[in-house]
């Protein structure tokens, strides 16, 4: 055996072949879009039901309605109580989760494949036949108001809430899914019933079934459980992409006071294009180089060079309507101002005198494409990926084309989108930290005195 050559790193070999999951599309008589994927590694099945209303569909003054409606689904069906529902989940070893996104409510249930029908039936009961009882709403509403009070303790949640409020203003994306205490107090059971009727309709939903079965078997599971879903009559609201654009941010520098905070939580960012932008590929390449991974510029600067933070990252938060770009880091209090200066300098440089280099682009491209097959290891990953295609109107060939799409992105494309979409002069910086320790320093950044962002009640 030859000794290892330690004078250089070993060369990288070619990638192994991978066949992306084949998606079969079906439409039930009631209009439900069903997509099945055979994933036969283990006796497991994952169902994802996506409806196209999320927190962005909350009416003004009713913030939190989508989330509380989602929460009410497993509070009982027919005569069954919340405890009974949970017991039925437990008896099939189900992992159940409901996620309120900006443009969608997503229910995910994973179970053993021998329980596929019971799992699908349970999911259908939640969606088709929730009891939506007044006394449950009263209890759930109180829990949510209390949880909101607890969020005041969390610097990360306060940073997110304040940032969304500043950049979106009164646009429907401008609040957390949980809503506000003032709006939650106003919510009634008829709000919930009406929202449920409008949002949960077979013609506006997609069901993905991925797991250990043939397409025909997986479709039959969907049909047996959801075939009886009747189309509703309520009209859907305004499509997210048709809403008016958010107003200009109300401030460039906001401070949320947290007494004697050991760190300052920084959120720096601005509005970004919707998921449907033709510039999606160069934007995610830009992000990977700038702050999307450990070796990105902002983490190398703020963590590995300066030691200011445990980690700094950037990201695009995609939506059907206007999204956001943010840089986030939790930094030691005494370096708050310096960290903001360094962060803004990186954001300025990438659109100015230090655009993403060819080498950085190669790294970003490799990290996005060469590990891509890992996203399809489990039935749950596959089902969630397919539901994303549905949410954003992407073709079934999206996965196969992903690598070549990324390969086609050039240095010039990335430089262009950096200039076009990132502009530190237009960004808002929100700091959650100790006023006495950080306000004076922040005031010298050139954005004036920081605007105190009080707590939303």
């Amino acid at each position, binding site marked *: 055996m030859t000794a*290892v050559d*330690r004078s250089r790193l070993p060369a*990288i070999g070619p990638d192994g072949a991978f066949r992306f999951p084949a998606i079969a599309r079906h439409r039930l008589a009631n209009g439900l879009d069903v997509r099945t994927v055979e994933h036969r590694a*283990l006796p497991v099945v994952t169902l994802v039901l996506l409806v196209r209303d999320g927190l962005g569909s909350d009416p003004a003054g009713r913030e939190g309605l989508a989330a509380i409606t989602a929460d009410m689904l497993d509070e009982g069906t027919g005569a069954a109580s919340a405890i009974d529902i949970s017991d039925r989940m437990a008896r099939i070893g189900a992992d159940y989760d409901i996620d309120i996104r900006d443009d969608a409510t997503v229910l995910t249930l994973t179970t053993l494949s021998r329980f596929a029908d019971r799992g699908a039936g349970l999911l259908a009961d939640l969606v088709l036949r929730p009891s939506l009882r007044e006394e449950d709403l009263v209890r759930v509403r109180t829990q949510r108001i*209390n949880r909101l009070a607890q969020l*005041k303790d*969390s610097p990360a949640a306060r940073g997110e809430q304040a940032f969304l409020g500043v950049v979106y203003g009164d646009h429907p994306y401008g609040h957390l899914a949980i809503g506000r205490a003032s709006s939650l107090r106003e919510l009634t059971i008829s709000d919930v019933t009406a929202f449920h009727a409008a949002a949960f309709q077979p013609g506006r939903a997609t069901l993905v079934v991925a797991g250990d079965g043939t397409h025909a078997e997986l479709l039959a599971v969907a049909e047996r459980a959801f075939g009886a879903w009747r189309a509703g009559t309520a009209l859907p609201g305004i499509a997210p992409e048709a809403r008016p654009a958010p107003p200009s941010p109300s401030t460039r520098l906001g401070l949320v006071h947290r007494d004697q905070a050991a760190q300052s939580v920084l959120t720096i960012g601005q509005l970004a294009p919707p998921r449907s932008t033709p510039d999606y590929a160069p934007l995610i390449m830009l992000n990977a180089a700038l702050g999307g991974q450990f070796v990105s510029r902002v983490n190398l600067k703020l963590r*590995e060079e300066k*030691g200011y933070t445990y980690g700094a990252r950037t990201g695009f938060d995609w939506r059907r309507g206007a999204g956001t770009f943010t840089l986030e880091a939790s930094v030691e209090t005494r370096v708050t101002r310096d960290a903001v200066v360094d962060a803004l300098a990186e954001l300025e440089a990438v659109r100015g005198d230090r655009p993403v280099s060819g080498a950085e682009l190669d790294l970003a491209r*490799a990290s996005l494409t060469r590990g891509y097959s890992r996203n399809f290891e489990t039935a749950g990953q596959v089902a969630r990926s397919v539901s994303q295609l549905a949410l954003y109107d992407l073709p079934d060939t999206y996965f196969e084309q992903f690598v070549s799409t990324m390969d086609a992105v050039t240095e010039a494309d990335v430089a262009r989108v950096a200039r076009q979409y990132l502009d530190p002069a237009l960004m808002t910086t929100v700091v959650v930290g100790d006023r006495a320790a950080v306000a004076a320093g922040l005031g010298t950044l050139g954005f004036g005195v920081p605007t105190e962002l009080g707590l939303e009640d």
Partner: protein
Amino acid sequence: MTTPDLTYTKRTLANGLQVLVHTDPRVPQVAVNIWYHVGSKNEQRGRTGFAHLFEHLMFEGSAHHNQGYFAPLQQAGGQVNGSTNADRTNYWEVVPTGALELALWMESDRMGHLLPALTPERFATQQAVVLNERRQNYENRPYGLATAALTEALYPREHPYSWMTIGDAEDIRAMELAEVQAFYSRFYHPANASLTLAGAIGEDEAFELAERYFGDLAAGPVPEPVRASTPDLQAKHLVLEDRVELPRHYMAWHTPAMFAPGDAELDLATDILANGKTSRLYRTLVFERRLALDVGAHQASREIGGYALIVATVAPGRSVAEVDAVIRETVADLAAQGPSAAELERSAVQVEAQFIYRLQTCGGFGGKSDQLNAYNVLTGDPGYFRTDLARYQHATVASVRDAVAAHCRPDRAITLTVVPKGQLGAALPGAERVVAS
């Protein structure tokens, strides 16, 4: 039907490195996972946090790759991470098949040739990063310092589980580069490590590559196991002030060592008590009486001994004493009567499902490669998966009842209440004030 198994092949290299291989060709990636049998329990009081800080240094470069470890691996499309707990430190990559040799080259270089790359500047930067990790995860997080207070309260001051893995901030500041040498020679060598390759790779190729990259590294002495006697807990109440809106109440007991008799039963018991809406405490505290906003429980199983913990956030307008009383009654009932047959049957299905779900991924924290190393390092038997499952499947009403009765005794329970600043009176009567930082 039979539960799928977690299959493997094992060989031990001449230098003592244990190598495990699991083939799963579905995705063209290979998981590389290394466990070093060293954690914060190998530290001393006054020198805490060292094992974890050392983990950070392992990513900063090695003799033949004298720069950061993330870049080449991310460039190759790999994922990279590591973690430290009281008992062990793990490092892993998940890489496309074409980058497997790169990952093995790098892991072997830092196993055998780390120190020449360690400069005072890199050391100082990682000290600062770790202090920020501590601020982010504990000091600036609501209820974050409860962990520190509980850890100290559960064990006497010199006990190896009496400090948090992240370490005391003073100790992290006081660490010196010179201490790294001795720590590295003692714990970071083939005879104190277990390497698993799992994924799109055949056995022969995997063992050949392991031998090629790790076979010439020098063996070291296997460290003596850490031993510590753990005196019984004496019941007491503690109170800690924090910047929080609502009081949170913690109740804890010592439990047996990982895989010891009673360990599986107490996992089941904590589930029956407080996990999910069907659990007894959720039903009483949150759903029916609304004394708490949330309740949860878990058992931390570790090599020398574990602990069980129940945590509930007290609802506005309700008292800690009410919540405390319900928890005590509920635990006492489980200790007297055991679970119902229906509860046990439900647990059995959940356990089976969770074991099968665990087989879905090869790499990363909790993936198949991590599990094989866990079983190998902690039981000596990498094929322990089915035995582990059987521990839960063989639990009975009587065995769960007896484990709760033996370990979750009221006279051996400590409580900690985290209260909003200035509200020490919200805690239980007679609670002793503690300070954590």
